[in-house]
């Protein structure tokens, strides 16, 4: 566990210079929040933002040849991959926290009702979006690197946007989404389960990709 935390720490150090861009997130969230967006929307916005900035770590890794640094350090290769997944999830949790705080602050400021159920639903849906997209993105970046993986990693984004677009035209999709929105409890649990399973499968695929690179 200590080894994983060290790698996570190294990833945070690696992204150090990029943290200035993270200020955009609370600003955007606060604007959305002031515009009466629900905590669900805020959470999904935060997840979307983190999905975009998370890829920076692969760009820095490639630019600086950090594979050589990792090879020199006393760490296991599978830990490097696991560390990157933990780092990604921590980033998501931090972004969710920002969305949550912004939601609470604006609710108090504008005397709006703040529902705990919405908070949980927001977290679960944001986690589903985040984990499904990053589950597809991470193995691509781990296998192909940033430059080669950049175009391929857009596929999950396009797929999600496409799915949402199609759903507005196809009755079947719309009824599934409506039913999911009605059955909040089931949707939240299912989102969490799907997200966790996708992340676990993605991790094992990534470990194999990392090994095959050698």
């Amino acid at each position, binding site marked *: 566990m200590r*080894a994983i935390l*060290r790698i996570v*720490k*190294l990833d945070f*150090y*690696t992204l*150090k*210079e990029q943290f200035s861009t993270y200020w955009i997130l609370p600003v955007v969230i606060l604007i959305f929040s002031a515009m009466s967006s629900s905590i669900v929307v805020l959470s999904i916005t935060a997840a979307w933002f983190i999905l975009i900035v998370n890829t920076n770590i692969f760009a*820095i890794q490639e*630019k*600086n*040849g*950090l*594979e*050589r*640094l990792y*090879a*020199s*350090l*006393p*760490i*296991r*290769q599978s830990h490097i991959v696991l560390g990157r997944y933990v780092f990604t999830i921590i980033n998501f949790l931090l972004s969710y926290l920002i969305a949550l705080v912004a939601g609470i602050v604006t609710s108090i400021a504008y005397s709006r009702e703040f529902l705990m159920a919405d908070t949980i639903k927001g977290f679960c849906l944001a986690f589903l979006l985040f984990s499904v997209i990053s589950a597809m993105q991470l193995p691509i970046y781990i296998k192909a690197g940033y430059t080669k993986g950049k175009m391929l990693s857009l596929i999950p984004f396009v797929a999600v946007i496409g799915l949402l677009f199609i759903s507005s035209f196809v009755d079947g999709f719309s009824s599934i989404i409506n039913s999911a929105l009605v059955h909040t409890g089931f949707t939240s649990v299912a989102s969490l389960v799907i997200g966790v399973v996708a992340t676990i499968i993605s991790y094992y695929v990534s470990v194999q990709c990392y*090994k095959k690179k*050698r």
Partner: protein
Amino acid sequence: MTENYLELHNIKKSFSDFTLEDITFSLPKGFIMGLIGSNGAGKTTTINLILNMLEKEQGKIEIFGQDHLKNEKQIKQSIGVVFDSNFFVDAWTVKETEKAISIFYDEWNHSMFQELIKKFELPANAKVRELSRGMQMKLMLACAFSHNAKLLILDEPTSGLDPATRDEFLEILQDYIKDGEKSVLFSTHITIDLERIADYITYLKHGRLFFTGSREQLLEKYFIIKGVSHELTDDLRRSIVGLRQTNMGFEGLIEASTTKQYKGYVLDVPTIDDIMIYMGK
């Protein structure tokens, strides 16, 4: 009995256009070994295999007497690595580099790092990208020395350095092995550096092991033979490696064991560079 810090036995690794095959050599404790060969000979591949950046197809690698895969984490606590270019995040300062790297080592010595950056004149608040190539090399060395690395693996560290910095770099290495407890594997094609500091030489040629042994053994193995054109007999022509002919005469490399037959000829002691040049012909 000599204790080996590094042992490679029959290592093989194939790529679509290159195969490294049957590589066997050992580096004893307390010595510097030069890993030489022309570009594409397999030096970096060998180092990548030692560091487990590449997976070997065949053979065995032992570091400090332990399997390099089974005990990778433990072994790497005592290995320092310097590549031909910086491998730290270029946005880090020297101070931040220490912060990021030190967390991985049980024996990290902060005072030693401070001492080394002072000795190497590395400004603590300068970003890695602002440092010259020579200074980036020194930073990698400072990190390697600060966790008490017993085996230093250097991949072409002096290529691209000016002569003064190269000289300083070699002095640092000599100083490093002084206590007899540390070893260095130094891959380079600047063989003049090795004439100065290497105790052992491993010479790779087209992915095969051409020679491994002490520097003296390599230098005693060959002579440069010179003569005028009419002295070049068919027998001699067959014995010479890398024959070079001009209007004035000829020269080439010849095995020391055969020189008894050629007493009337001019025989010079070659440098490592000469051996590589003639062998490459």
